[in-house]
């Protein structure tokens, strides 16, 4: 019995060391695996294109795409410097994201708190949500013109519904005990909203921001496709018209990179806003 105890004590620090080594090895495996996936896909694509299994004209090839990106980066695009195109699309995306989120949260909280209003407006909101909303991009291109306003509006509409439904649900799911407690402690209606209902709904709202940033990007790019003078979407549109598939893929790569950066920023924001939540195991996150 005591021998067993001693052994457990002796293996204690050793065990911790082994855990750390295992974790490090796992980390390396993950990174190695990611590189492997990239090599297989891009290498297969490149080889397939060179062996003419894949038609280069329609599907391009990684080396061409890389060359296009490099040319855009060093010499600029047909629309002007590359950074400007990225900046324009980012402006539209972030603008639409912010406008859509703010309106989504406001409407979600107000309708979540007001049963009558939500019953009256419910069918209209559901109906509007059922429309494939990117088509409003066409409307805004006509009514708001070719500049940034139309793209922000399109992105905002896409973002609004996602954030709205999450905020609404979040408000409805607030623990009734917490509301009762706050009322007993003396909270008035305003305090109840700002100190109990919004913080409680925040985990729902922030969760929706991950999806909705992607949608904002969709809105901005679709807005550019409907008519624009600059931006990544316009770059893609232009490349398409020139049958330059490498250009289309290069634009897509830019969009993917932008989205990944934004995703990281939102995760950081989430951790800041919801510090009070027990940390989630890192493995469950993608």
């Amino acid at each position, binding site marked *: 019995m005591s021998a067993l105890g001693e052994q457990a004590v002796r293996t204690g620090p050793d065990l911790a060391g082994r855990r750390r080594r295992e974790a490090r090895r796992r980390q390396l495996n993950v990174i190695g695996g990611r590189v492997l996936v990239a090599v297989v896909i891009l290498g297969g694509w490149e080889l397939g294109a060179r062996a003419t299994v894949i038609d280069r004209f329609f599907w391009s090839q990684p080396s061409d795409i890389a060359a296009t990106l490099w040319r855009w980066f060093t010499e600029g695009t047909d629309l002007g410097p590359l950074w400007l195109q990225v900046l324009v699309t980012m402006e539209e995306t972030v603008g639409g994201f912010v406008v859509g989120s703010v309106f989504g949260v406001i409407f979600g909280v107000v309708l979540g708190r007001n049963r009558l209003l939500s019953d009256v407006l419910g069918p209209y909101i559901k109906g509007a949500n059922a429309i494939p909303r990117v088509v409003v991009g066409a409307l805004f291109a006509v009514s708001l013109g070719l500049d940034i306003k139309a793209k922000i509006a399109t992105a905002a509409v896409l973002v609004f519904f996602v954030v709205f439904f999450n905020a609404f649900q979040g408000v409805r799911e607030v*623990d009734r*005990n*917490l509301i*009762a*407690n*706050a*009322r*007993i*402690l*003396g*909270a*008035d209606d305003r*305090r109840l909203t700002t*100190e*109990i209902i919004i*913080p*409680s709904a*925040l985990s729902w709202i922030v969760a929706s921001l991950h999806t909705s940033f992607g949608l904002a990007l969709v809105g901005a790019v679709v807005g550019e496709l409907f008519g624009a003078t600059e931006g990544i979407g316009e770059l893609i549109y232009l490349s398409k018209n020139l049958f330059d598939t490498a250009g289309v893929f290069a634009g897509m790569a830019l969009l993917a990179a932008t989205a990944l950066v934004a995703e990281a920023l939102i995760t950081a924001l989430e951790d800041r806003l*919801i*510090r*009070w*939540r*027990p940390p989630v195991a890192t493995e469950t996150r993608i």
Partner: protein
Amino acid sequence: MTPAIELRGVTKRFLAPSGGIYTALRDLNFEVEPGEFCAVVGPTGCGKSTTLALISGLEPPSEGEVEVFGQSVGGIAEGIGYVFQSDAVFPWKTVLENVAAGPRYRGVSNRDARERARDWITRVGLAGFEDRYPYQLSGGMRKRVALAQSLINGPRILLMDEPFSALDVQTRTLMENELLNLWSATSASVVFVTHDLEEAISLSDRVFVITAGPGTVKSTYKVDLPRPRNVAEIRFQPRFVEIYEEIWKDLRDEVLVSYERQKRGAA
């Protein structure tokens, strides 16, 4: 002397989700004196929690009169503290912010509220934990936060709804003693709802036995055990055992009725 709490002929009905009417309490009468510690015991589903909701003003009675210090209750009553059965501390606030919430809601400046909160956090033995979030605390510590959160407002009436039922036995005894200590420094009346007769007797001056639902007061017992009490030891006193046996005879029938009903409901 006006009683601290008076319920006269109180009936409470709820609209059941199925559309029927469910009577939780029927013709309930009781009085609690200022500074008195009362326990309410009864079988599951007898409307114990509903009683507290009525006294606090969270729910209006369907019939009858609820008075707190001679004032008819309409809406949230003044000077009430409420410790809930489940965790009702705010998970997005730190311990300090949780305890300071009451004074802030009542118009005390942020700085003063925090100062008073620090004092109360020390009193409930949580000094050093001011900046923790509830998820970082144990169940017993969260109950301490809930106690400080209620007591900081200097309630004249403290309502407690099975506050310690989720704690393990040792922590529970500790918290019961803690509660008696904190309470003895105030002049608050307490209504303590529990299904645990031992807990009820060791804490209170008077025990109300409620019938199986719809609940009404079946009988009232005075607990003439001396104070200050040590909850961990009081149950070995012969007088405690006597009182326990006396009340249990009464309570047993109600528990059986409730149990039979549940079995029939499940069958």
